[in-house]
């Protein structure tokens, strides 16, 4: 029994059982658009767009992570000379005329910190993660030919590209890019006289992110429409893989929250350019009292975090979906508590809209209001805990293939536990009095939504790489990448908890102006060295990625992971339209692993007589 492996002839099943949408009658109509530009650049194929999002995201990830290495050098080794980096940073490295020691200028330190946050949160973990996998998997796993609107989908990428170009350009301004933190709180972000980066740098930042939001909205509308309308025959909502549930809820969150951010941006633009006073009041700066009265900087914070909090779930939900899928496939077991997982995603999505002010406990809002936000915030711990327990139980009695995607999925769960638990401290406003804006917060969110989301992304890339490029990524390099990243990421972020408990504030250019914060020189050096090692491992990943596109081990079967979902029923080299003939028809949920002693039964396999009888008896 244990060795029973059913083999299916997909061609036959698709031919006999599949749903004929008369695709081949227009299929050839697609060929007139098969020149290089239309195929790889202005492509409307969701799979190409996914790859465009992924590779653009990888470029941004290297830039964003590279920035963190530069500012970590300043924090870990402030006495060491950075003259060697002067060819890259130019005037932002100030060289002492007598000693010849080059130092990163504080203005640019803050610009790097700001850009690091903006790039990683928006360009890498929103566009690069959700953009890649929503695009790749929604049509493939639902049995659709493409997105509901391939054209809008293409626009979504090119708006992201436009946003990227503007942001990239802003890095080279003589006044530097925006440097007021990724949250861009006014008045610092509203007044060019408050900081050099708040001039043109901020104007470009606002333009770039506005285009970015357009990209997210175009993508989101498409994802929602596709999920609701283009599921193949038999794919009821309750048969969708958890990946699709996660992308679906993510798109809804984005659609509801990003416009609020844009309204905040527009008010900020008005304050900057038209002399309004939405966020400005009673300011004396650069020797002059400004005429603005009556505005409130806290209003901006409300608008920002009304997006900002759902945004962290926009980042983490796709990772959760990917990890659920990868864990189940490689543990050869159904995901434990499928319905509980779906309801957890929905609960987290809903709650994410009513917790935003937990970022603002210490920002001068009425302390009474905080009571509600504490309650809602800590309620989120319940669906999150349910998800963690379900992931762990999915491993229980499994038959686990510990390959690279699975390792990253396990790593994700470990990171999500570590970072999630510290959220229980910060969500409790009384503890937040001390911990707010310290390194404890930095440790918390980097582990729970930075590293964890990257782990989800890596799990997804290693797992679906064969689907994207018909080759495998190299396992040995993948495992080296995993272990360095796993150990290194903990080495970087775990000690930051101690800095935070010692009261060290985040966003400090130097710690030795204060006796209270000057106690951790060795620790800061350790963190910096670990960060460099982790960064090197990511370079290895990128090398592996591009090497494997052309030289990786070839995929010889359609379904190398023996997974149940529909993307593995498409041809190895999947063309535009995904299935050559009929669309697959779905007969079962996505997690029939180990059922009745059979290793796996894909979704498009009809129920056996036995199963039908069981189904009837329920």
């Amino acid at each position, binding site marked *: *029994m244990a*060795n029973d492996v059913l083999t299916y002839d997909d061609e036959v099943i698709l031919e006999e059982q599949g749903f004929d949408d008369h695709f081949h009658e227009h299929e050839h109509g697609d060929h007139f658009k098969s020149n290089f530009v239309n195929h790889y650049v202005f492509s409307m194929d969701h799979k190409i767009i996914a790859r465009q999002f992924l590779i653009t995201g990888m470029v941004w990830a290297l830039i964003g992570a590279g920035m963190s290495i530069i500012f970590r050098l300043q924090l870990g080794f402030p006495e060491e000379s950075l003259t060697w980096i002067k060819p890259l940073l130019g005037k932002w490295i100030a060289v002492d005329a007598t000693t010849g020691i080059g130092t990163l200028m*504080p203005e640019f330190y*803050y610009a790097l910190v700001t850009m690091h946050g903006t790039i990683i949160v928006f360009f890498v973990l929103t566009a690069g993660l959700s953009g890649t996998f929503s695009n790749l998997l929604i049509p493939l796993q639902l049995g659709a030919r493409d997105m509901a609107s391939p054209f809008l989908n293409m626009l979504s990428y090119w708006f992201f590209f436009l946003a990227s170009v503007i942001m990239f350009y802003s890095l080279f301004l003589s006044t530097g890019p925006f440097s007021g933190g990724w949250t861009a*709180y006014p*008045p*610092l972000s509203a007044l060019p006289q*408050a*900081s050099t980066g708040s001039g043109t740098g901020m104007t470009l930042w606002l333009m770039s992110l506005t285009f970015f939001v357009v990209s997210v909205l175009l993508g989101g509308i498409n994802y929602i429409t596709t999920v609701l309308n283009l599921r193949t025959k038999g794919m009821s909502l309750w048969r969708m893989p958890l990946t699709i549930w996660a992308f679906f809820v993510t798109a809804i969150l984005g659609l509801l929250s990003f416009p609020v951010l844009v309204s905040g941006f527009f008010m900020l633009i008005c304050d900057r350019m038209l002399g309004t006073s939405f966020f*400005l*009041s*009673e*300011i*004396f*700066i650069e020797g002059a*009292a400004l005429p603005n009265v009556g*505005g*409130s*900087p806290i209003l901006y914070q409300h608008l920002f975090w009304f997006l900002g909090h759902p945004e962290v779930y926009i980042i983490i939900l796709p990772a959760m979906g990917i990890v659920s899928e990868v864990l189940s496939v490689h*543990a*050869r077991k*159904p995901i*434990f*508590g*499928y*319905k509980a997982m779906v309801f957890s995603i929905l609960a987290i999505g809903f709650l994410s809209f009513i917790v935003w002010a937990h970022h603002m406990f*210490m920002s001068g809002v009425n302390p009474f209001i905080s009571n509600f936000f*504490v309650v809602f915030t*800590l309620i989120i711990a319940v669906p999150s*805990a*349910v998800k963690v327990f379900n992931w762990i139980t999915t*491993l229980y*009695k*499994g*038959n*686990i*293939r*510990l390959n690279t995607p699975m390792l990253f999925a*396990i790593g994700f769960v*470990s990171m999500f*536990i570590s970072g999630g638990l510290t959220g*229980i*401290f910060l969500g*409790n*406003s*009384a503890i937040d*009095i001390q911990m707010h804006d*310290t390194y404890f917060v930095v440790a918390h969110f980097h582990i729970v939504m930075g590293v964890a989301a990257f782990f989800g992304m890596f799990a997804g890339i290693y797992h679906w790489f064969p689907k994207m490029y018909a080759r495998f990524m*190299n*396992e040995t390099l993948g495992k080296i990448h995993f272990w360095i990243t796993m150990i290194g990421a*903990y080495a970087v972020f*775990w000690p930051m908890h*101690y800095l935070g408990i*010692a*009261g060290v504030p985040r966003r400090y*250019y130097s710690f030795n102006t204060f006796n209270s914060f000057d106690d951790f020189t060795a620790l800061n050096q350790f963190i910096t060295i670990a960060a460099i090692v982790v960064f090197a491992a990511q*370079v290895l990943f990128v090398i*592996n990625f591009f090497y494997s596109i052309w030289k990786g081990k070839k995929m010889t079967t359609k379904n190398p992971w023996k997974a149940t979902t529909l993307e593995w029923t498409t041809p190895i080299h999947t063309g535009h339209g995904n299935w050559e003939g009929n669309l697959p028809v779905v007969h079962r949920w996505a997690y029939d692993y*180990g059922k009745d*002693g059979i290793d796996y039964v894909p979704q498009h396999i009809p129920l056996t007589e036995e199963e039908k009888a069981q189904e009837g008896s329920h």
Partner: protein
Amino acid sequence: MTALVIFLIVLLLFIILVQLGRVTELSAKIRGEEDAEEQGNNRTALWLVIFMIAFLVFCIGSAYYYRNSMLGYGPLTSASEHGWALDNLFNVTLVLTGIVFVLTQILLFWYSYKYRHNKNRVGAFVSHNNTIEVVWTAIPALVMTFLVVKGLIVWNDVMPDVDPSEDVIEIEATGYQFAWDIRYPGPDGKIGTKDYQLINPGLNPLGLDFTDVKTHDDFIADKIVLPVDKKVRVRITSKDVLHNFFLPHFRVKMDAIPGLPTYFIFTPTITTADYRQQLREYPEWNVDQDPADPEAGTRWENFDFELACAELCGKGHYSMRKVVEIVSQEEYDAWKAQQNSFYFSSARNSDVDPYKGQLLDIDIANRSKEFDAKFIEALKAEDADDRIVRLDYVTFETGSPNLTADSKYELDNVIKALKENTTITTEVSGHTDNTGDAAKNMELSQARAMAVMQYLLDNGIDSSRMNAKGYGQTRPVADNETEEGRQQNRRTEFKIISQ
């Protein structure tokens, strides 16, 4: 050159790794992929368990190693009353989450090891279990309820504003790029109003509204000094961008917002001196503060509580330091007595003073005291020639015998003295310096003396008790060669003739 070498080494390393990846892939092919996979799987499973143990040891060990540097775990205990409640809540949360952390990490990695792939086995079809799912939803819900209730009790205890009847010290902290100004109320115990439109970087950096007399005794201190065991309300404001008033040792943190004053209330419970003694017990605080400078003393001797900024405010964000000193009530009172009112020491009669050139009630009262002292001295003088009170604040319009408006306050002091000492008779005399025509000077001084006497007459002093005399430039009291001397010579005097 070094950079190039490092670059080449790194490049070489990457090439080696990529080759390694290829070789293992090829060797797996040769050995049979399934077997190679199975072996690799077993190895990885073992590494996961080793990682788990090492990771947990690292977490606990490093926390133990750094415990004395963290607030609340070594000598750095809370220095405020509410801080203990926060630390307690932190520790309760730490224990609860710590248990969950250790258990879930162990299960995660242990299951990954125990249920590693075996080609002779199929994963169990366990899709859900309602009982266990209800249990593990209910337990976190109960724990969260406990933490929320406990947390909110502390929060609602720490955050509300003071009752107006409560006895608190209120001080004001104003953040700006890139420093803090700390304003104390003077003896009146009240902080006067301010208006950002009145800010003048040199003369009135906080924009104090001097038409509000409560500002007149306020002083700006170069550090925060507070008495121990006394409740403090800090009014927190900002001049330009957002800042955050952060006192790590006191567990105090609140944003400073332009246009919207915030507050934080806390009670320091230990003096800086006592806190230093607490640190002295620990060896790491007994080393030299600065190895290069033996004079600097040990670390514990140099310890100070600090105020920091905890909200990004621009390129100098990391440097907004102020020392906080907690002292006994007596030391606090003594320190406060030494501080000078900002208004009187820096702004009085400057361009920003709305009362420039005008007398304030406090000036009138001070002048009255000054007169009384001089009058008593004159009464007691042995020598008849010393029984003179010079009326420094009696002045005339230029070249004219008309009294200025402010002169009446000084003359009222004279009237009061004469009414209290009914037996005294006096001579009011006028004097000038030596500039101009001597005869004219004589005439003017006579007229001025008469004007003063007229005022006294009008206010009910009998004419038999006084006479007026002008001496012109004949009786200088100082050198007429200097402007200072000449000014002293232009004067009105009041001489006691008989008592």
